[in-house]
């Protein structure tokens, strides 16, 4: 019965629908990157046409490669920093009692909803004061501040799920609080940490606003800026935009293939435990 729920025709139909809903857009995206500029508009919905690789030939140059590297640096840096700060913090929030926890959580949520453009000018001043403008480190700091609250929220349930006895035993053995965290708790929650890492990486990879505001040299721009850069005042190069988008998606796809299992099994926000 849950048997039939799981194997009935509804489930089959539903799966097919989902496949369509999530498969067609990508098919279309790739197809568009293989069309000529006018064909994009004359044969908008078409999936059958004469593909041309001219657009890819035009965009695959050293600038694109550099942009990919930049995206990787920014995304990896943000992930590392965010996790380094968020993991102990999320752990602490689950182990401490009292009013301050509620206040902290409230703050975390409030900080998460501050609109990104609103922090542009204050952050510019702060980063400028530390001489970090025009550096990728500056963008990493800004992105980490943006994503830290969210990361804490994701990590929390994983730490909540760890029974106290595990820690108590560690403390009994004479381990320091840090030791307990580092050598006992963290290894158990590696799944959760990896899940959070993947999510943060993906979001940082796509970030655009901070990158274009705080970086000064075009050679530092990540690939998200390149995509937006196809939107000129006098012309939008749709084919190039789609092609770059496809290229930008490839690294995500690559990481995704490896971390998919983690995401699939690791997201258990407040689930039945």
């Amino acid at each position, binding site marked *: 019965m849950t048997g039939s729920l799981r194997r009935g025709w509804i489930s089959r139909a539903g799966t097919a629908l989902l496949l369509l809903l999530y498969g067609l*857009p990508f098919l279309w995206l790739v197809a*568009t990157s293989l069309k000529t500029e006018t064909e994009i508009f004359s044969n908008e*919905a078409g999936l059958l046409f004469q593909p041309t690789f001219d657009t890819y030939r035009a965009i695959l140059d050293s600038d694109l490669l550099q942009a990919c590297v930049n995206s990787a640096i920014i995304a990896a840096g943000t992930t590392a920093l965010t996790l380094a700060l968020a993991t*102990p913090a999320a752990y602490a929030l689950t182990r401490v009692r009292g009013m301050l926890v509620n206040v902290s959580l409230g703050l975390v*949520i409030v900080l998460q909803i*501050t*609109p990104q453009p*609103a922090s542009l000018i204050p952050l510019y001043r702060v980063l400028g004061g530390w001489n970090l403008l025009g550096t990728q480190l500056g963008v990493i700091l800004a992105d980490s501040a943006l994503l*830290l609250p969210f990361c804490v929220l994701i990590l929390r349930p994983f730490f909540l799920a760890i029974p106290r*006895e595990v820690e108590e035993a560690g403390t009994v053995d004479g381990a320091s609080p840090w030791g307990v965290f580092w050598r006992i708790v963290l290894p158990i929650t590696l799944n959760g940490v990896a899940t959070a890492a993947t999510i943060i990486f993906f979001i940082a990879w796509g970030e655009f606003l901070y990158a274009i505001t705080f970086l000064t040299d075009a050679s530092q721009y990540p690939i998200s800026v390149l995509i937006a850069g196809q939107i000129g005042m006098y012309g939008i190069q749709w084919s190039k935009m789609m092609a770059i988008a496809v290229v930008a998606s490839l690294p995500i796809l690559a990481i995704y293939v490896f971390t998919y299992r983690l995401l699939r099994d690791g997201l258990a926000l407040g689930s039945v435990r």
Partner: protein
Amino acid sequence: MKTSVARGTVRRTVPRSRRRLRRVRAEWLFLLPAALFLATLAAYPFVELVHMSVSQVTAANIFHDWPFVGASGLQAVAATADFREAAVDTVIYVTLVVGVGLLGGLASAVMLWRGGRIAGFTLALMVFGWALPGLINGTAWRFLLDKRGMVDTVLGLFHVAPVYWLVDNRLPLVSVALVNAWVAVPFATLVYRAALLDLPKDVLASADVDGARPGQVLRYIVLPLLRPCTLVLAVVSLVYAFKSFDFIYIMTFGGPGTASTTLPFLSYRLAFELYKYSDGAAVALVTVLVVLVLAVIYIRQVGREERG
């Protein structure tokens, strides 16, 4: 997962009370780096936002003194027709994103519960869509929802007249919200799927034995057990939906006219297109306050959960 748990051997080398104190103090230290980091890079901008919303700030004085106007700025902005329209649109938008997102996520999780290769691939495809930057998704859907785009072409196969998804009446708002939901569904699916897999097998099995129908099982057993999960997901999605801006920006720019302008988008336009910084900040602040109220509910519930 290597842990050596020495059960049953209690060696009291340090008095328990002192141990607890040491741990509590240490745990505050764990919070410190994150707290300091956020204080400089996140709290400061937020404080500036609040300050801006109670002052009169335009491009002319942004780098000079800000005359304090108190709540009158907030009141003035809230009284405008633009604000009211945007507020209504925001409620519709958020309801759609959270509603469709959660329902879609639950439904998808149930559909894909079957497991197997195709289900696995479908799930992977869905989550990949969620992982892509909003700029790419928004642009792709802009074309897909065009009159000559794929959606209308497919509808045309069923002899349905082309729908102007991003033009007619209330549709632009709904369409952008649905695209946003399309991106949110995979996340919800993952969460629900994990929860479903964790359901106590014995309860389900006994329901089977008792001859309960799928609908009943779903309604009386599964859904109640998914409540805590749903609540957390709801709040996370709420925050996400309230903040949402990228899709509107890239798909309709709040239009046609102001048909798809939500509060976050209005805030952006006021501050960065019209340079009425304090008005933009005021609108942003209102949004923050609303979500804060909802967040308080979450925290209360979580507290209840942890105690229970």
